[in-house]
């Protein structure tokens, strides 16, 4: 990978020739993010006002949460993650995406599957395991679409211009392979030919970790490893730490699955292994963090929304890794098991680390693919600030509230009182979701104007006229 920082707005030929599928994936991913956040917000509001909309079965909290999960994981993270993967593999390998038309078809059918699947969850056809909620009728289409894109990504990797490859490419390739394996395992053993009894809970726990730690985390890490050094202008000089982090993460992350089963009705060795590997997770967390954080100059940091987001994403990774390790111990689990604390930790990983890394990817990739900067810096600022504050207000109330909930559940406080005490925290969490959701509209507006520049007839002169004062000012400042 190129070591010199490049701030050119226009991408290389290999990137520009891959622009169609990548932009399509980013765009539809962003729309599913909005859908998922709206569903999350509905579920959070319904916890505050349980009688609101109670006459509609499709608005049951369980179903709305399922729809939110499916939209966020498969709609947003899956698609934006695939966009980041394909763009980086094309860019780092210096080769254009093969079979662009086929990729477009695959993305379209991925979205068709979700468009039928998410309403299917709302009418009660969903599956009762976290992140496997999509009805089984749409799963084959989803799987096929992913495989198509994964094959294209793999071809891209094998056609790279240089024999050597970076840690970023290794992470991205791992993610491409790991999702189909985990997804097939989950669907086959839990949905199509269900295994018996608690085995379902064991495999569902494993699947959850495989999705979050084995699939989405490597994508986000791949993105950060290539975005951070480039934007901050400081190349990572820690190949040894990178390698240790990569391998220990791969080996340990899958084994932490049983941590949700501590004290549960499963053979004791499963939670024991999970506790051990959860504590050991501190090794990859520390090594990856040390090789990731580049301490850029404050001036550079503030001038680049992509770098700002990527830095915060890396910080979230470090915090969530350390918190996972610390809360793996049995004494912590005894208090925190079955509380909102682990929901909060999961959302720190998902929104704070993965989503911010994907946003950072959007801020770097889209201008290069379109050949022009995003039109409104103020919208970029609003989006970045809103997203980062939003993540804080989403996550912190769940962590604190969940902690209190755990202590009270382990006392003789009546459960109704425990939940009443938790309610203000859940309300704050709902407000955080609103902030996070609102700030996404700023990004959407920015992107729509940037893309509209090319797509809408007469869009260019009109937008040039609208943006004229802005650009004149920019020229003036130089």
């Amino acid at each position: 990978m190129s070591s010199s920082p490049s701030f050119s707005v226009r991408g290389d030929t290999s990137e520009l020739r891959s622009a169609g599928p990548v932009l399509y994936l980013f765009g539809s991913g962003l729309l599913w993010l909005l859908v998922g956040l709206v569903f999350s917000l509905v579920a959070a509001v319904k916890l505050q006002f349980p009688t609101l909309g109670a006459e509609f079965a499709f608005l049951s909290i369980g179903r709305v949460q399922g729809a939110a999960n499916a939209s966020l994981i498969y709609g947003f993270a899956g698609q934006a993650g695939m966009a980041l993967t394909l763009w980086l593999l094309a860019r780092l390998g210096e080769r254009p995406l093969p079979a662009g038309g086929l990729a477009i078809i695959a993305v379209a059918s991925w979205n068709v599957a979700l468009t039928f699947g998410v309403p299917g969850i709302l009418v009660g056809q969903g599956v009762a395991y976290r992140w496997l909620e999509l009805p089984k009728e749409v799963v084959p289409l989803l799987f096929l679409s992913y495989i198509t894109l994964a094959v294209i990504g793999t071809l891209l990797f094998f056609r790279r211009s240089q024999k050597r490859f970076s840690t970023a490419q290794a992470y991205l390739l791992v993610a491409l392979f790991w999702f189909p394996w985990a997804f097939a395992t989950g669907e086959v053993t839990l949905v199509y030919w269900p295994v018996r009894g608690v085995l379902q809970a064991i495999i569902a726990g494993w699947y959850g970790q495989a999705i979050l730690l084995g699939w989405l985390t490597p994508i986000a890490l791949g993105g950060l490893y290539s975005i951070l050094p480039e934007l901050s202008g400081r190349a990572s000089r820690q190949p040894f730490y990178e390698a240790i982090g990569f391998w220990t993460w791969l080996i340990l992350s899958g084994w932490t699955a049983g941590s949700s089963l501590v004290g549960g009705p499963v053979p004791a060795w499963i939670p024991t292994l999970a506790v051990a590997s959860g504590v050991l997770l501190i090794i990859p967390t520390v090594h990856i963090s040390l090789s990731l954080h580049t301490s850029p100059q404050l001036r550079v940091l503030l001038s680049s929304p992509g770098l700002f987001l990527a830095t915060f994403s890396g910080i979230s990774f470090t915090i969530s890794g350390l918190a996972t390790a610390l809360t793996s111990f049995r004494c912590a689990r005894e208090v925190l098991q079955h509380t909102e604390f682990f929901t909060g930790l999961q959302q720190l990983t998902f929104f704070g680390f993965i989503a911010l890394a994907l946003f950072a990817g959007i801020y770097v990739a889209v201008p290069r693919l379109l050949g022009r900067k995003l039109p409104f810096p103020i919208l970029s600022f609003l989006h970045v600030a809103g997203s980062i504050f939003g993540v804080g207000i989403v996550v912190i109330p769940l962590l604190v509230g969940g902690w209190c909930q755990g202590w009270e559940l382990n006392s003789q406080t009546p459960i109704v009182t425990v939940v009443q005490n938790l309610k203000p925290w859940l309300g704050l969490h709902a407000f955080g979701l609103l902030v996070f959701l609102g700030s996404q509209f700023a990004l959407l507006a920015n992107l729509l104007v940037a893309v509209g520049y090319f797509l809408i007839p007469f869009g260019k002169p009109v937008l040039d006229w609208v943006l004229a004062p802005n650009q004149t000012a920019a020229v003036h400042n130089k």
Partner: protein
Amino acid sequence: MKHGALLFCGVLTAFSASWWGMVAYPQRQLSNLPIYLGTNDAGMAYQYPTARSGEAAQGRQVYVSLGCVACHTQQVRPVDGGNDIARGWGRRRSVARDYIYDEPVQMGDNRLGPDLANYGERLGTNAFPLTRLFNPQLVVSNTICPPLPFLFDHRSVRISGPSAEALVLKGTAAPAVGEEVVPTLAAYQLAAYLKSLHTSVEVPEALLPVPSEEASK
């Protein structure tokens, strides 16, 4: 990095290790877990667990489809792993055998409501109060459990007279004169399922506490 093939094999080994350990091996260990055939103190043979009745099994589908698992767990942790038994959510810890007829398993992982593993046992001989499904706030004030009015038929009283099944609702919750709220089949099924929830049967891996021990607590 170089050596793509080596990397690929390494990644495959690292990831498949957890697959063998967390998916394949538990299947080998647990997939043939038998039902337990025991004898109680009175010398009567019993088997545990038993499959649910048709109505309760259909109610389970209603429970699953409404996503009740979002707030209710069905697992009792051991005495040294939490406060579940002291709270009266069960007399013994839950074990793998409790779930062998469940598909999908509804163990849950978040407690915004009470654990339901032994809900039927807590009801005792009482019938399940259907008002609790129609409007939980009428039964437990301040609960955030959502009402399920779509499981009930809000209709005008038939010419033949008020239905014997109609809910007895008082005060502001009472329907207008000439109207009544009658449970649908799904409400009865869900009630039957909740009533069927109990696990206080002795199995070798989790003995029930001796009554004197329980009394001394």
